[in-house]
């Protein structure tokens, strides 16, 4: 198996994210920044295999910081790239929207990992809208191989036009694999010369100074259109005979449409839109003129459809333009079967044979907090402490899973870092119901700080429980700012004190007695209170131990059957996945899962759970 950092030309079966990292190395992107978020973090995993003196990489505090850092590097003449997940763009958008007005002399490609189907996100927002709002061109690959090629195209266009360019991938391009032929890497000494000059600007868009910059951005869109019309980014796929029907699609939806056509053995042509903004209108119009019926197949929002209809209207093209009919078709991913079903609403040749409906007995398996997770212990203690009418606010991270049974902790969720401010709003003029907010430490540094300052300075009547595990666990243990793994380590308590927080307590999340003591003090405290419930991420810990010593075997706990009186608190309330219900109604420890952390021991009212002797 060849490494993705192989120097020479090679061919490999790789995932889209790895192919993107390879493309970055081949075109010599100099500065790469990100904040971890599915579906993109494996790009960083792949980058870690390359020699780092040739480029600079960082996981920044959040997506806005990451984008600004990449843009700053581009202003200095360094080819830069920033990547993050779909909703990360909301965080980055304040600066993003300015960038097309700037002469980014080094070039900047922003990779968006959109998530149709909301596989791992709080929504399935369609980031194609941002292109239109920010005058920012977008390329959309339809496979990992195309992602690799298009990234390179995006870089060369970005350098040439000195403007940022989006490369929009979706979850199942990032995570799908195919065989790709890679080019060789060029090894050189890069000078890192700072080329920033305000002569390349102006870079300060204030009041009426905005207009020349905006005009330049709009002109660049036209230049971009000219560039793409000479490239094969939008491409017509003919299927033998023109029967008057044409499908237009982009990204992975193109792949679904193409396979739908091939496997239905219909002779319908397909236009793949690789550059989805701005549209190469004249050439697209010329293609459409040859057809009577056009189906615009899109995933998520109806964006291309409107623009295609408008360009046809302006040019008096009379083709009938079809699109998705039902609200349900505006949601979720579109695979091959679904594409056929959607087409068949207008074109019966795509009709699918009826499938037998079977009685299904399977049920879903929701994700759970890992064995030994400090969040579980914290939730368990808080659950015992709070009363029925209290309100709990969740944030984003592993601890979001607390909303599921049996903890049911965290009843509201908007976005990264929202919990403290949303909780403060819920607490306004509300003396009867106590409001508790949860937040993880990576999220705290990402977008929690402004909310925390607000709550602290205005003394909001809430309790913030900071669940500190020292890492960005959910996306694969990327270092979090201030953990000491990268850069300086930060003392969370000193930081909170400096932010003016008067009530700060800290306990190991496993220590239920101490946590509950802090909670009751916090409840009696007038004003904003912060409790840090810390415990290292045990999954990360276990993996590190195994890496250091491949024969590492974690300890185990066992249930003393002579003591256990089957109250099942461990199983139903503490609910570590390591406890299994036996057919005879007794409880057993699943030793495949148990890591012997012992966090469950305190949950047993009969004290029947004990460390297993000789387990190590």
């Amino acid at each position: 198996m060849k490494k993705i950092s192989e120097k020479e030309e090679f061919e490999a079966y790789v995932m889209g994210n790895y192919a993107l990292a390879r493309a970055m190395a081949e075109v010599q992107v100099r500065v790469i920044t990100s904040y971890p978020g599915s579906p993109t973090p494996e790009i960083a995993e792949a980058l870690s295999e390359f020699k780092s003196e040739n480029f600079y990489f960082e996981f920044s505090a959040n997506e806005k910081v990451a984008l600004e850092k990449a843009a700053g590097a581009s202003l200095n003449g360094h080819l830069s790239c920033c990547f993050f997940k779909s909703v990360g763009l909301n965080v980055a958008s304040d600066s993003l929207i300015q960038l097309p007005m700037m002469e980014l002399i080094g070039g900047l490609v922003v990779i968006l990992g959109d998530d149709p189907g909301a596989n791992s996100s709080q929504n399935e927002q369609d980031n194609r809208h941002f292109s239109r709002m920010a005058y920012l061109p977008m390329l959309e690959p339809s496979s990992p191989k195309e992602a690799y090629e298009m990234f390179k195209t995006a870089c060369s266009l970005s350098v040439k036009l000195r403007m940022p360019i989006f490369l929009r991938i979706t979850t199942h391009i990032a995570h799908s694999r195919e065989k790709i032929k890679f080019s060789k890497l060029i090894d050189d000494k890069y000078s890192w010369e700072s080329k920033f000059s305000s002569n390349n600007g102006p870079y300060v868009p204030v009041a009426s100074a905005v207009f020349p910059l905006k005009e330049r951005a709009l002109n660049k869109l036209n230049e971009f259109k000219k560039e793409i019309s000479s490239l094969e980014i939008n491409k017509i796929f003919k299927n033998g005979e023109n029967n008057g029907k044409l499908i237009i699609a982009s990204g992975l939806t193109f792949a679904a449409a193409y396979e739908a056509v091939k496997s239905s053995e219909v002779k319908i042509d397909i236009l793949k839109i690789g550059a989805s903004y701005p549209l190469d209108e004249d050439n697209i119009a010329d293609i459409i003129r040859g057809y009577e019926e056009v189906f615009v197949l899109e995933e998520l929002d109806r964006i291309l459809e409107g623009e295609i209809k408008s360009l046809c209207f302006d040019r008096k093209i009379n083709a009938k333009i079809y699109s998705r009919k039902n609200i349900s078709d505006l949601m979720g991913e579109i695979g091959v079967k679904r594409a056929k079903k959607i087409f068949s609403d207008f074109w019966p040749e795509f009709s699918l044979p009826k499938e037998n409906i079977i009685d299904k007995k399977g049920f879903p398996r929701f994700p759970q907090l890992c064995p030994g997770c400090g969040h579980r212990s914290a939730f368990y203690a808080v659950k015992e402490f709070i009363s029925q009418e209290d309100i709990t606010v969740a944030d984003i991270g592993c601890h979001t899973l607390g909303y599921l049974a049996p903890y049911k902790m965290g009843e509201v969720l908007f976005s990264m870092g929202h919990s403290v401010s949303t909780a403060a709003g819920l607490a306004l003029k509300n003396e009867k119901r106590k409001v508790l907010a949860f937040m993880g430490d990576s999220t705290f540094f990402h977008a929690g700080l402004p909310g925390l300052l607000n709550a602290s300075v205005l003394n909001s009547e809430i309790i913030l429980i900071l669940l500190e595990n020292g890492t960005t666990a959910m996306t694969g243990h990327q270092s979090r700012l201030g953990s000491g793994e990268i850069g300086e380590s930060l003392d969370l308590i000193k930081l909170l004190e400096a932010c003016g927080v008067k009530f700060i307590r800290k306990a190991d999340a496993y220590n239920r007695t101490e946590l509950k003591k802090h909670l009751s003090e916090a409840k009696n405290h007038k004003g904003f209170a912060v409790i840090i419930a810390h415990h290292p991420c045990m999954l990360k810990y276990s993996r590190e131990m195994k890496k250091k010593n491949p024969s590492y075997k974690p300890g185990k706990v066992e249930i003393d059957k002579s003591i256990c009186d089957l109250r099942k608190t461990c199983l139903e309330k503490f609910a570590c996945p390591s406890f299994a219900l036996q057919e005879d109604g007794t409880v057993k420890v699943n030793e495949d899962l148990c890591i012997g952390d012992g966090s469950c021991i305190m949950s047993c009212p009969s004290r029947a759970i004990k460390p297993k002797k000789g387990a190590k």
Partner: protein
Amino acid sequence: MNFNIYINGVGGQGVGILAAVLGESLISAGYEIMGCDTHGLAQRHGSVSSHIRAGKNIFHPLIDENEADFVLSLERLEALRGAENMLKSNGTLIFYDSVYQPISVRTGEKKYPSLQDLEKICFIKKAVFHKIKIEGLKDFRKQNTALISVFVSLAKIPGLTHEIVLSQLKDYIKYDIEENIKIYERAKVP
């Protein structure tokens, strides 16, 4: 020859490695393939699946419902859902019979499926049912090795030999390679 392989299990069981080894092996055997890993939110203990699609004119990486020629599962409930949702009529279900109770089972809200439930769905779909359980297999992370060995034995995909798969396995597996090879050999179906 076109075929779809749907692989699923519980996070932490090694579905990803199984899919990578199988994907590489199919390429070595001369197939054109697309693969895709799908995982939801959590690091562990949620459902995880991988799709492999082999053959000509394949452009989309995901297998549609009821279109998997093979469902390979590392856990019984996952096998049931895989068979119900993904398995084609006349397809093949091969699963390692491990049990990981989801929270709904542990709290008594749901009943964990029986082997009969699995046999029944295979009967309805006229599918091959093959259960694997290796007595004395201590490390649950080696169940995937047993599963791939049984798959190669039973599926009889032209060109996909045990030698090819073993050489890929050696490339991918970081720990206990010898133990894994032993399990592979033991699990082979004549």
